[in-house]
Structure formats: structure tokens, C-alpha cells
């Protein structure tokens, strides 16, 4: 029961239901593909950094004038920073992780120029570097203070005897073998020994697929522009940032404090494109779902109003309220399902286009059944109220002339 009147009304005006089904199909294709992109981006932004990102402050300073002694300027700055209550550790570093600015290098396990090297981001900082970023050393040891020297821009220093690498880089270099204590070669074919392995840390470029490849050399870069990494006690960051800026600014007039920023903000800037895409697509998805739901509500309300007489007649002939509700729900379900079937096909086509033309990752197939089930629920909710209104049409309507 229920199929008879429903089918007859569906068949009488084919175009309307067809259009709604088509709209549902395209909606499904957009929503599933957009949602997949949003989830991908959110996952990317929320990856584990391996650092205490919320409690790290980054200071950029730049010296000028002929009277400036860069080394003593940096030494004084670091001492000053460490004397501020609440500062846990501070170091000068050649680059800031997650900032999008950094230097890359290639390492080899054999000193042979002709074989391909393993690419990695390269950092250089002092013995407090790990502590200043809150990075955990999985195995081996940190740099000894005597291994860390100031490095001036024109110093052509030999490769350091000791380096630290991340586990990801170690795996890329040595595979299954244990990398601790092994020797690697730089582009100059000079060797260095891996003395410590960092469990996990992200490098410079958030969209690089080798983000987790990082090698660290001991040293305190003393360039024109210098970067200080400062870790503060949990929760004190926002309070300490203006204090750091003020104290550094007053202590030395031969260099300027370019900026004091939190590592969290720096990382967030690096992800702004991904975040932007996620926000825009979320808005698109919301608008689209709202629109399609409203259209279903609008159309079913209209149909109910149109068919008042038919409903009244059916009621007069003994159909129960439930039968009327079921008629409309079923009719809607049929249209939705037709749309969903075509929509799944369209979703796959769009996903293929995105994957091939724009190198986006392949759509996870599990999004398809989830999308279809959500669609059923949503469209059932949209038609519920109009169907209830239909059921409240009194049987006596049939006898009235309009």
C-alpha cells in the first residue's frame, strides 16, 4: 500500500521530481568532495609538531652599524633572556621551524656525488635548542656545550663531527638499520656522525612531503639577522612577550628588535592557505545543504497544498493519517535515492577530476556510504513537517468544492 497513488502522482509530472533528483545528485557530489578536502586540510593543520608549540616565543633581531660586535650582542641577549623569570630556555637558531623559511640540504650514506641524496631541512642551534623548542630526544645524546661555537657569515667551517637527526630522516637514510652512531656525508662529502635521534619534529615547510626530515648541526649562527627561540613556562607566553620585547629593545641600541612572535602564530600563518580552503569549503557545504533542504521543504509543502483534494479523498476512502505521511515520505525517499545513486556516480567523476587535474589525494570510498545515509536522514527530516501537514487534511475536504 502506498505505492499506487505515489507512483501515479510521480508519473504525472516527471520533470519536477527528476530535477530534484538531479539537484540532490550534484549536491552530493559537491558536499562529499568538499568535505573530504576539508577533513584533509584539518588533519594537515593538526598534525603533531613534536614541539611545545604553545610556549615558544620567537624573536627576530638585526644588528647594524660598524660598532656592533655580533657575538657579544647575541651572548648578552641570550643571557638577558634567560634572566627573565618564566623563561625556561633560549637559543639562537639559523631558522624557525614551521615558518616556511629555512634551508635544505642533501645527505648520503656513501660519499659518492653520483648517487641521489636524501633531502632534509637543516637547522643549527646551541645545546639548549631541544629544550627551547620542547623537543624530546628519543635516543643518544644532545650536543655538549663545547661542541657549540659561534659561526660568523664568512666562516667556512668544516662539517661538525656530531649531528642530530629525526627518526624519519634516519629511516630514509638507513631503512631498518639503527642510525645511531652511523656516519653521513654532506654535499661537500665531509662526514658527520649521528649522536642523537629525535623521535619526532617537524621542519620548515609545512606543505613539503618530507616535513619530518630534519638534521641539526651544533652552532650559534651570528649573522646580520638573528633568530632567538625561547621557551617559557606553561601559560606565561602572552604575559612575557611584551616584557621580552621591551627588555631586549632597551638593552642594546645597535640592533633592532624586528619582531617578537609566538611560534603558534608563525605556524598558523604557514597554514593560512589550508585553513582558508577549509573555511571556504565549510561555508559552501553549509549553504548547499541548507539550500537543498529548503528546496525540498518548499516543494513538498507546495505539493501538499496542491493535492489537498486528493489527500482528502484518500482519507475519506479510509486511508489513515499514517498512510498519508508514509505516502509523502516514501515519495521523497524514492526521489532522494534516485538522486543519491546518480550522485554517487557524479561524486566519483568529480573526485577523479580533482585527483588527476589538481593532484589532490584520492577520495576515501567510505565517504560515499556516509554521504548517502546522511542524505536520506536529511531529506526525511526536510519532508517530515509538510507530510505531517498533509496528514492533518480532514477527510471532509473531499466533499467540498474548492
Amino acid at each position, binding site marked *: 500500500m502506498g505505492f499506487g497513488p505515489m507512483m501515479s502522482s510521480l508519473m504525472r509530472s516527471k520533470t519536477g521530481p527528476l530535477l*530534484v533528483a538531479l539537484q540532490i545528485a*550534484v549536491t552530493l557530489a*559537491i558536499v562529499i*568532495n568538499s568535505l573530504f578536502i576539508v577533513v584533509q586540510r584539518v588533519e594537515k593543520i593538526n598534525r603533531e609538531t613534536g614541539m611545545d608549540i604553545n610556549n615558544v616565543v620567537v624573536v627576530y633581531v638585526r644588528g647594524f652599524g660598524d660598532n656592533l660586535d655580533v657575538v657579544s650582542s647575541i651572548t648578552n641577549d641570550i643571557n638577558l633572556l634567560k634572566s627573565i623569570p618564566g623563561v625556561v630556555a633560549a637559543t639562537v637558531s639559523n631558522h624557525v621551524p614551521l615558518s616556511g623559511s629555512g634551508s635544505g640540504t642533501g645527505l648520503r650514506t656513501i660519499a659518492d656525488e653520483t648517487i641521489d641524496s636524501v633531502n632534509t631541512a637543516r637547522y643549527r642551534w646551541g645545546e639548549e635548542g631541544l629544550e627551547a623548542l620542547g623537543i624530546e630526544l628519543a635516543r643518544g645524546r644532545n650536543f655538549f656545550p663545547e661542541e657549540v661555537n659561534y659561526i660568523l*657569515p664568512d666562516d667556512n667551517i668544516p662539517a661538525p663531527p656530531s649531528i642530530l637527526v629525526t627518526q624519519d630522516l634516519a629511516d630514509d637514510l638507513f631503512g631498518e638499520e639503527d642510525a645511531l652512531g652511523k656516519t653521513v656525508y654532506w654535499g661537500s662529502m665531509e662526514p658527520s656522525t649521528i649522536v642523537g635521534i629525535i623521535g619526532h619534529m617537524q621542519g620548515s615547510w609545512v606543505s613539503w612531503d618530507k616535513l619530518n626530515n630534519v638534521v641539526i648541526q651544533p652552532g650559534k649562527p651570528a649573522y646580520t639577522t638573528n633568530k632567538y627561540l625561547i621557551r617559557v613556562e606553561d601559560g606565561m607566553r602572552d604575559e612575557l612577550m611584551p616584557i621580552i620585547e621591551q627588555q631586549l629593545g632597551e638593552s642594546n641600541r645597535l640592533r*633592532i628588535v624586528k619582531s617578537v612572535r609566538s611560534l603558534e602564530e608563525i605556524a598558523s600563518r604557514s597554514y*593560512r592557505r589550508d585553513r*582558508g580552503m577549509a573555511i571556504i569549503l565549510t561555508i559552501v557545504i553549509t549553504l548547499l545543504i541548507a539550500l537543498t533542504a529548503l*528546496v525540498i521543504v518548499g516543494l513538498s509543502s507546495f505539493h501538499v497544498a496542491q493535492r489537498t483534494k486528493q489527500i482528502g479523498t484518500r482519507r475519506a476512502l479510509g486511508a489513515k493519517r499514517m498512510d498519508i505521511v508514509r505516502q509523502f515520505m516514501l515519495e521523497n525517499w524514492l526521489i532522494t535515492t534516485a538522486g543519491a545513486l546518480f550522485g554517487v556516480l557524479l561524486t566519483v567523476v568529480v573526485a577523479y577530476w580533482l585527483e588527476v587535474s589538481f593532484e589532490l589525494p584520492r577520495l576515501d570510498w567510505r565517504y560515499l556510504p556516509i554521504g548517502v545515509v546522511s542524505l536520506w536522514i536529511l531529506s526525511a527530516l526536510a519532508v517530515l513537517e509538510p507530510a505531517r501537514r498533509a496528514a492533518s487534511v480532514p477527510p471532509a475536504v473531499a466533499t467540498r468544492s474548492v
Partner: protein
Amino acid sequence: MFNYNVKLALKSMRRNPIMTSLMVAAIAVGIGVSMTTLTVHYMMSGDPIPEKSDVLFAVAMDSWSPLRPFDEDYPERPPHQLTFHDAERLVEMAQAKRQTAMFESSLIIEPDGQDELPFEAGARVASGDFFAMFNVPFIYGGGWDRSADESRASVVVLTRDLNERLFGGEDSVGRRVTMQGRQFQVVGVIDNWEPTPRFYDPINGGFQEINEMFIPYSLTLGLELGSTGSDWGWKSEDITSFEQWLNSEALWVQYFVELDNPRDRDEYLSYLNAYVGEQKKRGRFERPLNNEIYNVMEWMAFHEVVANDAKVLLGLSFMFLLVCLLSTIALLLTKFVGKTVEISLRRALGASRRVIFKQQIVEVALIGFAGGLIGLGLARLGLSGIEAVYDAPPGLVRLDWVMMFSAIGISIVSGMIAGLYPAWRVCQVPPAAQLKTQ
């Protein structure tokens, strides 16, 4: 007759306010979303310097490692920055009509007032031809000439903003600015200049604000100016002084030439080939001969200035517009079915099919127009939203007249397309047929 049609349309729209507003909303949202993404795409893919984009060329020469190509994914491509001294040589030889070597740097400005703190300002280090090549507009003064390049004159061209900060916006030509302990003479102040995309340096970001000042390329050595942009290296060299760095194989200088016609272009390429041939004899440029010059639009395409994300959004938002149109058609169809009584009455009273059809079309055009107007408002909102989430310089993306008219046009046309089939269906109602059943 038109007025009568409009009156009838308004009446019919009012009779069913929910349906009407749903249709207007559908078109508005569709136009709003697709216009937003279309504007972003249009801005990203626009020609930043239409009057000269086919005579300006970026130069690339393959001085990379003999062992492997610069870009493993595109081995046929030479690296697209030059070494400092190659760029310097090319400028000195001046074989093109105009040429400029350039890179991004920054300097410390020491203001005269005792109370004012020194501050850092971005600089584009370039040759004097830069300004004429790229049609840079000046408020005061002008650029410097080639003799200033050759004599390593300490001259500077300021942007409007920096001139505002240093000299309160007045004509500062001839005044002095202290930078890195050296006195620079201001020779010009440029007006707001925002080529979008920033075609002359897509390597360091295609959509950034321009640098705050310009100084001669020939000052690089004397001031020991490092690049704040990207530098690429392949060779392990002993570098213990700034001069050695400048003479190294590191690539960090961008090079542009102006060539008026295809013959000049060919001649310039053969000149580059001869230059590389000369260098090969000295043991440099060990890779096969591979020089390229790209005009502005080729250069933009090379750097994929239009982000993939923007293309994806454009595609998805036009599918969105399709959904909106499908909704509108479905709604119109349902609505017109409800009007059959009225139509058959009018037909019975002598209205021809054409008259009925016209009247329906006027109604949907009105709906389209209203949707388009609201959609434009939504697009403006969307663009400010995009500026906010992408942290773009204010005013980078805006709706110009072209976009506004196309938005209204697209919405009216799509409204009418959406209305065609329903209107045709309604015209098929036979006169008086509907009247009988009631």
C-alpha cells in the same frame, strides 16, 4: 505592454512569497559563491601589465650541476634565477633594449630625529631600467639612469608609504636618507603600484605588497646586501667573504629584459647562447646548452601563479551555481503548475501563447535580477572574507565593473534559462480546459 508584464510578474511573485524568496535566495547564493571564486581566479590569472606583457621576458640559463637537473620533475627546465655575476655581466653588456637584474633585500633606516628608532625596510635591488621597463608611476622625480648604475651612486627611490613615513609625504627629491650608515639621495617617489600578480617576482610570492624602496644593483657588493628571497645552490664551494659569495654558483638573482619584436627575441637568445658558450670554455655551465626566455604570461604559467586551490574552488562553485539553477527550475515548474487556472482563463479570454510566454519570462528575469543584486552583495562579503582568511593585502581582490556587470548578466541570463522550460510548459495549457474541472 512591458509595464503590464512587470505588474503581472510582481503580482504573481507576491502571491507566493515563500516560493519567490526561495528562488531569489537560490540565485543570490549561487551568484554570490561563484562570483567570489571567479573574481579570485580572474585576479590571479589576470595580465598584470597588459600593455607590455609580450615584450617583457624573464631569463633563465642552465648553470646547474652537471650531475642532475635543477627540477627532477621537469628535467628540461633550466633554473629560473641567475648567479649574481652572470646577471651583473648581462646588465653591463646591455644587449637588450632594456634589462634589469634584481633581488629582494632589506636595509636598516636610521631616521634623523634622535627620538626615532631605526627600523628595517624592504628593498628591491634593481638596475635603473626597472622603472621604464615596468611602467612604474612616479609622484615625484624619477628612477636613476645607467650612469648611476655604473658609478655606483647611492640613490634611492621610495614608495609612497615610505615617503609618507620619512618625509610626511612631501616632495623629497634631493633629500637624504641614512641607511646602513650611508647617505642615500632620494631621486624619486613612486605612486601606489600594485601589479597583480606581482609578475616580476613570483618566486618570492605572487601576491605580496611591493618592496618599500628601490636601490641600484651595483651597490650590492659595497653594502654587502644579502638576498631575503630564495637562493638555490648545488655546488659546495669555499666561501669566506661576501665577494666570494657573489662570485659563487649560487642562484638568487632574477633577470628581465625588454625586447620589442620576435627578431630581437631571437637575437637575444643567440646572444645568451654565445655567452654560455664563452662560459663553457671556462669550465662553467657544464650541462647541455639550455637557455629560455619567458614572456610575462608564460612566466606566470611557469610559476603556476593561479593556485590549484583557486581552480578547485572555481569548479566546485560553478557546480554550486548549477544546483541553484536546478532548484530554481524545479521551483518555477511547481509554481507555474499552480498557475494553470489563471493561465487557461487568460488564454480563454484571448491571450496568445506568445503573450503568456513573454510574461513568464519577464517574471523570471525579475527574479534573476533581484537574485543577482543580492548575490553581488554576497560576493563582496565573500571577498572580504577571503581577504581575511588568507591575510591578503587589503584591496587585493575587489569587484571591478567587469565583474559586477557579468554577475548581473549571468544571473538574469541564468534566471531566464531556468525559466524557459517552465514557461514553455505553461504555454501548453489549453484555453479553458482547466476551468471545466473546477
